[in-house]
């Protein structure tokens, strides 16, 4: 029997911030196209590693003075460099003990269903790969894999994508908040994940059962510049018998606002550009009735591409509305209270450009 605590200790010493062990049976009921049990059918255990985003990486966005460091360090830096380097080490540690370690880094839009809305077929995703031909731009998009099909009847089409945040829940690390972000007691919403599937039999950690991590304060809903989280509709899913409810998220709208967050929140786009295109390519910002979809994403990206496009392989986050709001509230009365000597935010709300 492999020593579970030895793996955890090794992972943390190697540079992971959290390490949890999940029971793959906790995914019972997941749609087949997103069921992680098809990734490595011989797997008996799932290990989740969490990597914190330093709070200071968000500081520039919070102050409105620096936006580059967050996507390049807390997104690209963790996903592309930091997490893989530790996954590799922990994988070797497991394989040295005679078991297989299928290491799985953060990735998106390589599956048979859209990671935007779960529908089958070919849709854009805001993840890292650059697709020039569809957008004529340098900003980052890539697409789900339209032509994929199973290699045998009992398998699912490659590359199977599973829900990282729910998988982290299944490994006992935390709960999904109203914002749809995974919250942990240690870092609130500020972490990213990577996983290891292994055929080693490992006793799973219990599901998180501590004090509820989400305050249900709705700050994430209020502070999203795109109003992407619904104040009235929710989604509930059950993982390992634990129901989790979040506000219904308009993923396409979130996609748009994440990178080009509109007149009040995007300091890189001149006012006249918003004015010029208010009833055309940028109508999504001015007309609440316009439904966000892939075409609206392309309209926005093609128009705003010259104003600070992606150059680190990841789109530049301009909004940080939900995550900043959540950190602020959790420091005031939740799991992050007392963690830092000085608060993330002094006032209740952050800046809005007056225009």
């Amino acid at each position, binding site marked *: 029997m492999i020593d579970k605590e030895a793996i955890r200790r090794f992972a943390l010493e190697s540079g992971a911030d959290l390490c949890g062990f999940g029971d793959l049976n906790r995914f019972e009921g997941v749609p087949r196209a997103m069921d992680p049990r098809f990734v490595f059918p011989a797997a008996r255990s799932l290990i989740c590693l969490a990597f914190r985003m330093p709070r*200071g990486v968000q500081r520039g966005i919070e102050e409105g*003075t620096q936006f580059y460091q967050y996507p390049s*360090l807390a997104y690209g*830096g963790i996903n592309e460099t930091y997490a893989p380097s530790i996954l590799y080490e922990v994988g070797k540690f497991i394989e040295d003990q005679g078991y297989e370690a299928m290491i799985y880094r953060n990735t998106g839009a390589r599956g048979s269903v859209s990671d935007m809305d779960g529908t089958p077929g070919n849709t854009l995703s805001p993840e890292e790969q650059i697709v020039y031909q569809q957008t004529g731009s340098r900003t980052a998009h890539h697409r789900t894999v339209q032509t994929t099909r199973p290699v045998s009847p009992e398998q699912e089409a490659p590359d199977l994508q599973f829900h990282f945040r729910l998988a982290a829940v299944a490994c006992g690390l935390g709960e999904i908040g109203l914002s749809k972000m995974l919250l942990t007691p240690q870092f609130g919403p500020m972490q990213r994940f990577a996983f290891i599937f292994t055929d080693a039999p490992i006793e799973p950690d219990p599901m998180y059962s501590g004090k509820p991590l989400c305050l249900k304060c709705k700050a994430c809903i209020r502070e999203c510049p795109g109003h992407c989280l619904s104040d009235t509709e929710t989604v509930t899913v059950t993982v390992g018998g634990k129901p989790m409810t979040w506000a219904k998220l308009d993923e396409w709208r979130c996609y748009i606002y994440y990178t080009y967050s509109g007149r009040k929140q995007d300091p890189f786009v*001149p006012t006249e550009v918003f004015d010029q295109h208010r009833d055309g390519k940028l109508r999504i910002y001015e007309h609440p009735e316009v439904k966000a979809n892939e075409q609206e994403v392309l309209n926005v990206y093609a128009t705003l591409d010259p104003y600070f496009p992606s150059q680190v392989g990841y789109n530049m986050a301009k909004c940080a509305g939900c995550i900043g709001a959540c950190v602020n509230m959790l420091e005031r009365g939740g799991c992050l209270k007392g963690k830092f000597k000085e608060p993330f935010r002094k006032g209740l709300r952050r800046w809005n450009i007056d225009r």
Partner: protein
Amino acid sequence: MLTSQLIKEAARRYGADLVGIGDIRHFAGTAPEHDPRLILPTARTIIGLAMRIPRGLNQVMQSGTQRYAANYLGTKTISEELTVLLLLKLSRLIEDEGYEACPQRTCPNIRARDDDGTNPEVSENISLRRAVPVAPGKPAPDVLIDFTQAAVICGLGSPSWRGQLLTTAFGPFQRLAFIITNAPLEADEPFTASLCDQCGACAAACPGQAIGDKPMDVTYAGQTFTTRSYDRWQCSVYYRGAHRANPLQPPDFLADHPDREAIRDGRFRFGEETAKDIYPKLNFLPQAQYGYVACLCGRACDQACYSHLKEKGLLEDRRAAALQAIREGVRP
């Protein structure tokens, strides 16, 4: 308890070759567009980190036998990977103690509002001159700290003639990163001497004559250093290999260009438009990821500088310290 010694030991363990800690008050008078206090208003100190560029990578550029390795390993790997690991690991240590860590890696492809130049190392640069402040009293984003200024404040070294950092350990051959923090660490003294003796070897070596003779004084932490004008657009063209000595240049290079010989001799003066026009003709080697272009001038300025510093005995001999460290089982 978080101490300067603990930070320095950890930084070396995580891959830094040089570490210095600067008092944030030394940035007084800095233009808002470059002032770290506007990134982290509660900042007290700044941690300066240098990672060396292995000398061997420069040797093969100087000897003319290899150019791709230096671009990939000496530039892209250090800036995009090793620096990221170092910054994230050190930030964890600081934030575990309740202080905030704002890591600052290079932003190679964006130019601050007041910067009309370019970064020769990357294929494309984006100007932020149309950005607007998010609120009155704040500068328009992104605030980008001046890495040479910050390194001087952290006591790591002094500016060269063209304004980049020189250290006694590696001369011009290191890459930098910083962490702005509100941790009240004991600060090092700023670097006050000038390692550059204004010999002019860098300017003489540049095949594109990108380093001018116009003196430009810069003042960091109260200390004035004399540098020279440095034309980044001119540099970018010869960095990519427009000069006659570039061994990758085909015989028909710019065959129909009326200024062919002046360009190849480094006499032609490039500006933003003319530089961008000629870039497509300078596609001699593949770019590395994130748009790092191969350096085909072989960093002639830095090679000349290094040789001069070494000849003058201004570079540390690190061998004795390294051997001692190996004996003691610690990182030098």
